[in-house]
């Protein structure tokens, strides 16, 4: 199979296979790949690029998992360990609302001592600030942990969280599904199959979620493609994923020291472009500028990406890992960045409804 044959197949609207995706990863002509991904994206999304205005709340960095790639977690007795109070959480939501945020993104460590009620209260506290704030909270890993904590089934746990005001789920914790790599990266964490199973139940409960992939560490290209295959299959069944977000591994402060790890700018763009082409049942592909850097994130808008994440305020996880991007990007900056890429900025809400054009 040549690149041209795959391109023809994609242009006809047909789905590509895993081996074809592998070939796209290994294909030498980065710009031809980018143009194909851009074409796929424009067919779906035109020239619009989404962003939303959100605030991250990382309520605690205390975590019973000790994922090797993570520079954020602490054990409870380590210096720098923290847990926010409800007042602090409320304060951040109030600030976010004043700044025009429409979403609060809540993820944190798996804290050993908090009761399930803490999580319910955290959501209702944010919703009490304003019912218009969408609470996008808890990765599949946290949901599994909360279900255990609450001694409830996953669907029952999700029901309780929904009643408290949970609006949707972020896509974190997927890392890479391949068991051998996952065992080395994050042996304590949910397996890939479990992550997918939780997400299936999330979607069945009527909630939407995102999906991620952590790449640029120990995984092979085949592992990346297999990760995307499993996401595509689940999406065929549920349609519950809103967006795919590949996350570039940040080697700087992680325990995981791998020679030559960390991604090249070329690899970042290639991964985004292949995912746009392969994941034909995903509406959106997001570039997470916090980890990619603003320049590569902007350039990716010409490589099939149509979503730029929020104007994140106070992101801690990527920054602890050594991301050297600013903590936040203002609305004006993100609008300018999209315009300068020749695209049309559209502010969206968490569920990808258009709020405002620029």
């Amino acid at each position, binding site marked *: 199979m040549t690149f041209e044959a795959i391109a023809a197949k994609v242009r006809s609207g047909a789905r590509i296979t895993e081996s074809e995706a592998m070939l796209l990863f290994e294909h*030498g002509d*980065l*710009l*031809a790949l*980018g*143009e194909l991904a*851009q074409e796929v994206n424009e067919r779906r999304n035109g020239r619009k690029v989404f962003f939303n205005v959100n605030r991250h709340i990382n309520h605690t960095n205390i975590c019973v998992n000790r994922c090797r790639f993570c520079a954020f977690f602490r054990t409870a007795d380590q210096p720098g360990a923290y847990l926010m109070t409800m007042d602090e959480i409320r304060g951040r939501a109030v600030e976010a609302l004043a700044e025009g945020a429409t979403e609060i993104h809540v993820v944190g460590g798996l804290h050993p001592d908090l009761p399930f009620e803490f999580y319910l209260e955290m959501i209702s506290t944010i919703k009490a600030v304003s019912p218009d704030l969408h609470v996008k909270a808890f990765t599949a890993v946290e949901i599994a942990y909360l279900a255990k904590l609450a001694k409830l089934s996953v669907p029952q746990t999700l029901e309780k969280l929904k009643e408290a005001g949970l609006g949707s789920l972020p896509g974190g914790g997927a890392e890479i599904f391949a068991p051998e790599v996952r065992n080395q990266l994050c042996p304590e964490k949910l397996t890939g199959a479990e992550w997918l199973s939780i997400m299936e139940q999330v979607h069945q409960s009527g909630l939407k979620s995102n999906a991620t992939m952590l790449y640029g560490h120990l995984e092979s290209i085949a592992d990346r493609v297999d990760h995307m295959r499993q996401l595509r299959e689940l999406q065929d069944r549920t349609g519950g994923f809103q967006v795919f977000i590949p996350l570039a591994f940040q080697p700087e402060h992680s325990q995981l020291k791998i020679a*030559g790890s960390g*991604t*090249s*700018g*070329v*690899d*970042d*763009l290639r991964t985004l472009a292949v995912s746009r082409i392969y994941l034909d049942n995903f509406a959106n592909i997001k570039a997470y500028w916090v980890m*990619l*850097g*603003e*320049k*590569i994130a*902007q*350039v990716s*808008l*010409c*490589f099939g990406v149509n979503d730029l994440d929020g104007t994140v305020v106070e992101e801690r996880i990527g920054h602890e890992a050594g991301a050297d991007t600013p903590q936040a990007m203002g609305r004006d900056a993100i609008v*300018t*960045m999209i315009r*300068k*890429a*020749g695209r049309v900025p559209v502010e969206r809400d968490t569920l990808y409804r258009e709020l405002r054009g620029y």
Partner: protein
Amino acid sequence: MLNRITEKITAGADITAEEALWCLTEGELLAVGRLADSIRRSMHPGGCVSFVVDRNVNYTNVCESKCKFCAFYRELDAEDAYLLEGSQIMGKIEELVAQGGTQLLMQGGLHPELDIEYFEGLFSRIKSRFPGLQNHSLSPAEVTHIAKLSGLSIKEALVRLKGAGLDSIPGGGAEILVDSVRSEISPKKIGWQGWAEVMREAARLGMPTTATMMFGSRERQEDIVEHLFRVRALQEEGGSFTAFIPWTYQPGNTELGGECASGVEYLKVLALSRIVLRNIPNIQASWVTQGAKMAQVALFFGANDVGGTMLEENVVAAAGCRFRMSQEEMIELIRSAGFTPVRRTTLYKELERY
């Protein structure tokens, strides 16, 4: 328009200013990039990307030019004004040579007291102690300043500097080679004709040169095109440019302020440089202003070289932009972008392949 431009490029013909402007304003990034990439592939078919091991020695930060985009200069009586001692300069060069460096890039402010004798003395000492090192120093603005201070013509100054050991001239201070822009961002600096005059004289004397462009400050797209066409014309008339190096204005700590050019703008200008300047063999990616990831991507948008490792760099760093790179990191940067790393001399002779 894209078809017309593509046809011209395939036929090896030069594009017009109007076509170049279209690339900047209307052209899709990847379409323009592919044109540049095809030229890069035909000019540098081996899949190699080169770099040089060098050090910038900024001998003084005292400068009478006081450009508004510059965060590095100081007044003569400023508390943190400095002029390096000869022994300090020699010490820095020793470190460079010990690390296998082959290029010295001395650049500094337009100091009111440093005349031709100062540089003749310094350069001949450097040459006698480090005969194998390429002395690639003094931008056209400095050469002009030294000539004026010493009552010499440009040609006389260059002849004497060359005699003392200056091997080649870097193309800094070109900023935008359009005087309406220069009068806004660097009113006291030489005009575009002054810059061109030094480069013409240097070429006549057989000295290799490079050309740069700093964009993203106050210029219009038309000015970028004008700059590229002026450099192309200079080269056609017998210029000695070995490379063209576009980089972006860094607004930190400057009088001019404002924003940094975006990644898409950088890649477009870089690609257009490759397309317009087919009579200049090498185009450098600027990792110093763009960071490693963007420098890698730039290799698909016309660049075939990543410049120097820069054991030391102070001017861009003063504007808050600090990327650091060792030789090993440079090799890894090139390799992980899919190219073969080659260490080169200032004049693009291959020294080692990795």
